[in-house]
């Protein structure tokens, strides 16, 4: 089943994930962030993307994956999206490709817990299953 839509392929903590390219504003190298003490650990802080301030989502923590080490956590690349008038940068380790992929529903019976509740489909990658994440849901889960 190909829905003919473009997807962004990325990796976080060794896991392959997918985003709907139409939901993505841009892809950036994440600059240093200003922490927001008191906010959940899933929020890395605020980063200025040119003159706009984005809230950086610590994707590893949302998904419960091991961090790649280093001060800034694992992800140094950011998938930028605008949700309800707020700009977010979802941190990922690597960004591979933009591709048209066949996405099918997650297998019935899979328990998708925590951040994985944002999974809205799966697709076949290179010897791995790519989990398609709904950005809006992912950002919501980061805030919980």
């Amino acid at each position: 089943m190909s829905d003919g839509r473009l997807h962004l392929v990325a990796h976080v903590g060794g896991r392959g994930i997918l985003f709907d390219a139409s939901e993505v504003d841009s892809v950036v190298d994440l600059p240093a962030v200003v922490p927001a003490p008191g906010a959940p650990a899933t929020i890395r802080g605020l980063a200025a993307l040119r003159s706009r301030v984005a809230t950086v989502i610590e994707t590893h923590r949302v998904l419960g994956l091991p961090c790649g080490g280093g001060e800034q956590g694992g992800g140094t690349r950011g998938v930028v999206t605008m949700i309800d008038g707020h700009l977010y940068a979802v941190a990922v380790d690597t960004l591979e490709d933009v591709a048209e992929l066949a996405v099918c529903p997650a297998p019935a019976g899979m328990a998708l817990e925590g951040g994985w509740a944002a999974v809205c489909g799966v697709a076949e990658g290179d010897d791995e299953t790519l989990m398609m994440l709904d950005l809006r849901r992912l950002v919501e889960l980061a805030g919980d």
Partner: protein
Amino acid sequence: MDDLLQEFIAETRETLEALSGEIVGWERDPTDRARLDAIFRFVHTIKGSCGFLDLPRLARLSHAAEDVLSAVRAGERQPDAATVSAILAIIDRIGELVEAINSGESLDDGDEAGLIAMLERGAEPAAAIAPAEAAPAHAFTAPASAAPASRGAKRSVRLSVDLLDRMMSGVSDMVLARNQVARQLRDTGDPQLEATLERLSMTVAELRDTVTRTRMQRIDALFQSLPRMARDTAAAVGKSVSLEIEGGDVELDREMIEMLRDPLAHMVRNAIDHGIEARADRVFAGKPAQGTLRIAARQAGNLIVIEIVDDGQGIDVDRLVEKVLRARPDRAAEINGWSEARKLDLIFEAGLSTRDEASEISGRGVGMDVVKANVEQIGGRIALKNTRGRGLAVTIEVPLTLAILNAVIVEAAGTRFALSRQVVEEIVAVDARTSGALRIERFGANAMAVVRGRRMPMIDLPTLLGLHVPETVAMVAIVTLREGVFALALSGVVETQELVVKPAAPAVMSTGIYAGQMLPDDGVPILLLDVAGIAQRAGLQFERREMRHEEEAAVEAPRALLFRDTDGCRRMIAAEAVSRIERVAPGAVTRAGDHWWVTREAAAVPLWIGRVDDPSRVGTILRLQLDGRELGYPVVEACEIVDLPADPVEGPEGTTVVMLGDEPTELLDILALFDGEVRPASRPLCLLHGSESGWMEAFLRPTIEAAGYQVVRQAQPGTTITVALAMEEEASGAPGRVICLSRRAGAGIYRGDRAALVAALQEYRA
């Protein structure tokens, strides 16, 4: 004023355009409630603006249309064809007038009176439509031919907010790029290049200011028209009101300012017209004669809060409910079960008013539904805090979409934060050499700052947020909230800057300690701290000031009413004795018997005329009460309520004089006033007995009353009849002592012999 007029014109044009569809729809289906409400709101808004902008013709038209629409809304009038076309004619006329004002043309009066008359008649369509159709035709010719010659109106266009936002963010990008270029060029040392860059910098800075101004406006813009409006409104209803405005320097999104303009104007008019009492009533209620209306804007968290607080009479919830039930008796069961607060919210229902009569100023109760609709349209909330007799506080909260704030940038918990300058009273450094100025004392998890002997709770962010790195407190910011003061521990202060605040992402805002995010010129984001949120999260509990206020009221000294007497002197009377201050209608003072009386609501109150030259010209009285007896004391005006000075001085001729400030003032002896008065209740009763009592009442009553009796025709249980009058043949049935009257002169007491009757009555009275 010109700006306001331009805004009014632009707004009215736009609304008219949007409304034209509604009007057509309403014409087709006059029972359509939603459309009716929309048209009503339009007319109501026009009326409000006109009063302030001094456009009497528009005001007259809109007032007339509003009256009729309101009657239709209340179901008192049917929206028949004639009514609909009359309303439409008025709306057309409003459009023409607005165009005429814009082009600076004068439009002759046309048939405005006719339009209004037609509206009031509502019937006779054949006769009425004719002038309505004639008017537009007549009106159109004038502006059309004169338009090219008219003075150039200030031109304006409307832009989408989106476009402005893109422009703003483009300019912000440019500022950041400029800063970068400046840093890179600083090392080259080329003076010519530096000069060019300097010029570019200035241009960019100017551009940023201009662009910011396209989107932002000081909230002052909203407030500056209020003093005049308050003054005019107060003058129109004969009240005196002082207006206090706070927080005008907050800069806000223009969009919000526009949306808030009408609600605010409505509420100021409402407060003055309905809330604040007439001078005399205020004096008597123990309030300063001048009412106070306070309007304050402040930023609290991610909200802009505007408060409109008056010290008037508040809303009478019982009357409000009564009013609703009169229109909708079927809701009685539902409403009676509601809490007081819920009942109060009835004020927001469409078409409701607490006033029985509309006034020129604010109409009916007024359009609180309009106010609420406007506020909610921009995602805001409106709340009421009603204290019967003490005043009404209306709080409007609108989300902070964008604001410019004067911010202090500080360091705490290893990060930079911003604090609003408005809340920072002072920043005090911890310095070993001046150890007296600031001392920090810790006990357990809590800390206290002692600044020059003033103690206050201290909060440090690492402790509050459970961070592992303890704060190195180098200074504290003394933060003032409405409720109290606390110290916020800081490790440094960077600078102050004017910055645009935008809301942060929900995940960040949900911590409750941030009010928004900012991006200064160096391109590193900063979070704005919400000090009220911090205080709340830290569990600070400030003593409520209001409670203390009430305790003070409980131990009040006896008070006296100071007034100007009819002879021009200022005198005082114990406030306790005055039940009301009343205006006396012309002709209400009459002479009867040996006394002057004030008639009011069919009851007559004796008037004390000791110092009055001409009692018939008395304008205001104090109604005094003493154990069920009443007396009217004429005055020129009531001045104020004062504390009764403790030590009276004996004045001449047995008067009591007290020193009020350095002015000796006579304190009235209430008992003496009542002493010289008639006492209807203490007159002996004279019973008219038997079948002739009707005749006796008609013929003898004045005589009997002149003899000092009160006349009754039936003995009420519990009253003592001093004497009874009866005809000879019925005398045996009368109770107690009886004066027998004969029908013929010469035998006993002839009933026509006044002197004999008075003598007999007086004998029994003694």
